[in-house]
Structures are given as structure tokens and as C-alpha cells.
């Protein structure tokens, strides 16, 4: 499977390519619509992460993280706008998003933020 290959890939561009290949495989089979959608999301996430890394001048590494982890990293680094964008892009439900935010705020000991919550 191209998928397993993708998970091992370290190089960003190669990884996106193989995830896209996996996407193609899944879209050929109409019973695999869900998997295809997921792979599409995956490649979008990877692209977004690349962009984030560029924005932060490669100081913070995002690549290969899950959606949750990416949001957490954004929040931890004071990029809450980006976190909100991720939330809407990936349709993260409120409940989960608040949990992530809660954990992140506790981690940074941002008690004012917690209060405003």
C-alpha cells in the first residue's frame, strides 16, 4: 500500500506525493469514498503544516502531526488565529476543540486565558 509507504516517508514532498497516490487508489473504488476523503484531508493537512512551518521560519516543526497536535502546537505558540482556521478547515467539533484548548492553556499556564474561557 502506498499508505504505509507514506507513513514511513520523512521527506515532506515525497510524503505528500504518496498520500496523494493513496488518495487516487481509494477514489478509484467507490466503496472507499470515506478513505479517499480522509486521504484528501491528510494531504491538505500536510500542505497546511508546510505552510505553517514556512510562516514560523522553520522554527517550530509541524510536519507529520495529527490535527489535534497541530492545533495544540499552534495554541502553545500563540497562533490562535491559525488554530481557529484549522478548526473550521477540518470541521473539528466544538467539544473536541475546547478540550484541546483547555489542555493547551493548562500547559502554558495561561490562567487569564483559562479564566476568559
Amino acid at each position, binding site marked *: 500500500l502506498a499508505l504505509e509507504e507514506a*507513513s514511513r516517508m520523512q521527506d515532506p514532498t515525497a510524503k505528500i506525493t504518496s498520500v496523494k497516490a493513496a488518495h487516487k487508489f481509494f477514489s478509484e473504488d467507490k466503496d472507499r469514498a470515506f478513505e479517499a476523503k480522509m486521504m484528501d484531508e491528510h494531504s491538505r493537512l500536510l500542505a497546511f503544516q508546510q505552510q505553517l512551518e514556512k510562516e514560523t521560519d522553520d522554527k517550530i516543526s509541524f510536519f507529520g502531526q495529527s490535527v*489535534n497536535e497541530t492545533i495544540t502546537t499552534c495554541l502553545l505558540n500563540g497562533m490562535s488565529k491559525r488554530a481557529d482556521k484549522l478548526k473550521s478547515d477540518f470541521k473539528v467539533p466544538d*467539544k473536541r476543540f475546547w478540550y484541546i484548548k483547555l489542555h493547551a492553556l493548562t500547559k502554558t499556564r495561561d490562567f487569564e486565558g483559562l479564566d476568559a474561557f
Partner: protein
Amino acid sequence: TTDHDFKEHLDVSLLKDIARNSLVQALNSVNGAKTLVLDPSLAGPLSLVAEISLLQQHGVDKMFWLEAGPLTAVTTNVVYLCRPQIRMVKVIADQIKRHARESKTHTYTLLLVPRTSTLISRVLEEEGVLGDITISTYNLQFIPIADDVISLEHENAFKEIWVDGNEASVYDSAQALHTLQKLYGRFPRIVGKGDAAGRLATLLTRQTTQSSAGSDNAQALSEKFDSLIVIDRRTDMITPLLTQLTYEGLIDEVIGIRNSHVEVPASLLAAPSNPSAPPSDPSTSTPPASSLLKEKKKKQHLSSSSDPIFGELRDLNFASVGKRLNKVARRLDEDYKARHKAQSVAQLRDFVGKLGSLQTEHQSLRLHTGLSEIIVPYTRSSVFNKSLEIQQNLLSSYDVPGQISAIEDLLAQGADMQLVIRLLCLASITAGGIRAKTLENIKREFLQTYGYDLLPLLLSLAAPPLAILLPNPLPPSTAPEVAAFKYPYPTLRKSLRLVIDGTETLDELENDISYVYSGYAPISIRLVQCVAQKGGVLSNPASGKTRSASDDAAGRGKSQASVKVQAHPIVGWKGFEDVVGSISGKTVDIAQNGLGSADTVSASATSHPPQQGQATTTVVFFLGGCTYTEIAALRWAGRQNQGRKFLVATTGVVSGASIIESIAGVGRGAAASKGP
């Protein structure tokens, strides 16, 4: 009757000797000093069989892990010891070619565990090194991990059979069981459930027939065994998905037990009061593998033979462990106090003589108190209790949609990946699938939370032959075999009396095997009871009122005045054909006669009944692994009857976590295999 019970156990240490001797033989087949290169996944099993010193006695000079990269060996002989995996062999080929380039000359021997395969030599041929290496085998089979448990210690068997479709471990199991037959005689009857179990039974009978035809030692029927019961893990996926609640099971859930060794903080093992612990004491000396693995945490071998307190605790429901520990502590305290009462010199000497064993006990008490302290906060956590609640509700099919949204909550909170997926699978099995839309949503959430890399895991869980995470109704395009796998849980719950509800306290529950899961009886063990303890399935054999009734119902088992019911002879699935038939997968029932041909049983053929006072052993083989809790339940079941002991044989000890992780490919194994 403790010592009486003890005698009834089959002596399985013989198997360890065999494993040891064949290792020595394999090593001795290479003359002179040698460098041993070891597959990390074999280190654990090997440490159960032999010590480092034994290896050294037989010429092992240095040991390395088998891993990618160059190998520097001083000795001419290089011995590789590994499982026949292509990945491993490629590494070996790479090392050999590297040596050739550096024009170093070594003699290579490859010992494959447990046997060689043509695939391996093909790979070596393709790599162009087949001529440089001698291929041989080290036939490692059952290793005793307790008096009544023997294991192949093959952790990936489950994944290989039901995810990869690799049947090698079925074959290896048949080989190992055949060895058992060679030692103790032929199983008079083989009963089993599940497709893979069916293939195993076929392989085993074929092997038996061949071996008796080929050689003159046609084996007689075993005097010691009355039957072999093969339970295919696929027939009971529910049990491993649940959280284990016995002491040993919880240690496995929380800390993880690998090859009977648990990693605990070193401080727990150190004895500050007694820094010069006698090195001869086998229970405290850490096994050789730990010196190889340079880890901060120390490994402790858990075994009831060297640690009586553990033997007492291992199968207890965790709720009663605290009480028991307290009792042991009090007794120890009393024993220590006895010193003050010592008056004469003789009494004093007597006490000093006992001191050694007291200290050992003291030490193990410390260990178990420490372990409990690690476990208790975990069992008090909200996630743990929530998941238990979900499990119990799902098992009684109570408010399934509510449970699913509770799982979603856990997911949102970022609970452990394996916990969430276990609950999801459980919901899917017990409820016959999850509503398609809900399932899709959760799967999406799941991937977003834990990473898209886990999509293969979801796919393997949904694909046949596993198919334990399914939408309901099934999409029309699904393969028919998937539909056939549907698990008749609600019916089974009634017919096998899986969930004991009501107001019984834990103490009363202790009378049924459901005690181990605080109210749920493992299906796998109920199936075993269907064959070997029919009364126990229908009602609680230990509750006096119903005992005679259940005996009548089952039509076997002579009611006795004594507490224990005499074990009835093995008559296959009789009485439970319908129930067993409702579970997908092949049902096996074969009688083996002494002459070597195997026929499907006719109704009249029953094994000879166990004579009064004479004990037989029923071997229960779990293909694909069993949990510590199931072992505990079988031990319990074994205590209910007179005249029959269970010997648990398995491909390995598993837990829900280890199954999920092995499928996901992120096992604890991967983390532990980093060596020097």
C-alpha cells in the same frame, strides 16, 4: 488439598529442558567462539529458556541485536538467530555484503526460529548471499511460563493470522502441539471452534497420521490428556477488548508484561534495608536480558514459583488485592515479631534459618505494594471508570447510542488511542455494527485526533477475516463472508450466561468465572466449559442449590456428597451444538484413535471417563493468544471440578492493547527493541 492439586498438574518443565537442549545443540553445531546476533523479538522468550552464562559456556563470545547497519564481529563465526521474516533476512544479507566489500571473512550461520522456509532461502538467493551462509533451525516451541501455562511466546500471531493472512503460526502451533503429543501421548479427542482452529486441527491430525505411518513408534492414546480444546481467538473477540480486572491482568494493562517480565522502577526492586541481597536468590536476580537492554527501568520476572505472594495475588480481582496484601503484611509482621519470643538458642537458630525466606517475602511484598500503588491511581482515573462503565453497559446492551456518544467524549478528551478503538470495536461486536453515519463521524474524529497514519488500522479492523468494526446496516457491496461473521452476541449472552447481573456482591461472584471481569464471563472460557464443564455454563456450580439441577440438565457429572463435582468425560460439544453453531467459523470435533487414523466422531464414541480419584488434563490451546484474565478464569474453572486439570497453551499472552498496537504497528515491542 493443595498438595493433592499440585500432583495433578502435568510436569511441563520438561518442555523447558527440551528448548534449552536444542538451543545448546544448535549452538554447538558451530565450532569455536562465535558472535551471536539476536533478533530482538526473541530475547524475551530466550531469557525464559536460558541464561547468558549458558550461552557463554557454549562459545558465545559477544552478542548483538540484529538491526540495520554494519556489524563488527571479532570472531570468525557469526551466528544469526532470528524469526523467518524477510525484513530481518535483508538486514543479514546487507551485513554479509558489507563484510565482503571490506574483505573480512566470516563464517555465517543462520538459525531460524522455529523453522526454515523456502521464502527465506529465496530472499537470500536474490540478495546473492545464499552460498555464504549455512541455514539451520532452532526449533523453539512451547515455553512454560507457569505450572499450568505454556506459550509459544509469539506476540504477533494474532496479527499474522487475521490481518496479514499469514498462516505460518497455525502451522507452528500444530508442530508444537504435535511435540506435546510425542511427549505425553496422543490427544484422545480434539474439539475446537473457529476457522483457523479447524485448519490447526486438520494439520495436527495429518501430522499425527504421517508420523505414525513413517515410524514404528505408533503412539498410544494419552493417559494424561483427555482432550485438546482449540479456541480460535476470532471466535471471542469481545474478551480481549475488555479491560482486565485481575491483578496480573491489570499489571499487563497498565504497565505491560512481556514474556512474563514486567518493567518496574528500579527503586522497587532494590532492597535498601538489605543491600547485600544474596546473589544466589533466584527471585531477585534480574534476568540476563535486562543487562543487555540498557534501560533505566529494571525488569522483574513475575512467576508464582519463585514468588508465592504473587501466586496468591495474580488471579484475584483487583478490588480484593489490597485486602490480601494487607493480610500478608500482617502475617509477615507476626513472623518478624516471633523473634522476640525466641527464648532458647535453638529457637533463635530456628528463626535465623527462617530469616532468609522472610526477607524474600518481604521483598516481594514491597514489589507488589509498589505495583499496586502504580495501578491504583490509574483505576481511580475518570477515563478508566468511564470506560468500564461503557463496557458494562455495552455488554448488557444497555443504551447503545448513549455509549457511543460516551466513547466520542473520551475521544474528544484525547484518551488513549487503543482504549478508544477497543471500545468502538466492542460496541460494533455487541450491537452488531454501528450506524453507518455515526461510525464515519467517529472514524473521522479518530484520524484527526491520532493521526491519519492510523487509517490502515481502521481498514484492517473492518476487513475480513477480522471484521470487528462495521457499519450497520452493512453496505450492499460488502462481501458475503463479512455478513456471515456477524456475531450473535445478544443470543450468546443468554445461552452462555455471559453477564451476571443482579445485586450479588463480589464475594458471591467469586463463585463464577465472571468474577474475573466483575460480572462478565469470558466467552472463550464459557466455550471451554461447554466441552469440559457443562454444568458451569448453565448455572453456578458452586452455589449448592442449583448444582444437582444443573447436573441433571447436562445429563452428566455424578452428584456427589463432596464439595467438588467429579469431572464428566469429554463428549465434545454435546448439549451446546446450537449455541456453538451460531458462532461463525468451523466447529471441530475429532477423535483420534490409537492406531493413527483420525475420524470424525460418531455419536457413540466418547473418551473413557476419568476414573475416580485419577486426574486427567485437558489442554486448552488459544490460537492467537489469550489474556491473563482468561488464564485466571480457567484456573478458577479447574478448581470447581475434581479429576480434571486445565493446561493452558497459547501462541502468546495478549491484551486488547497489545492486539491493537500490533495491528497498528506501533507496539511496545518497537519501543523496547532498541538495543546497544
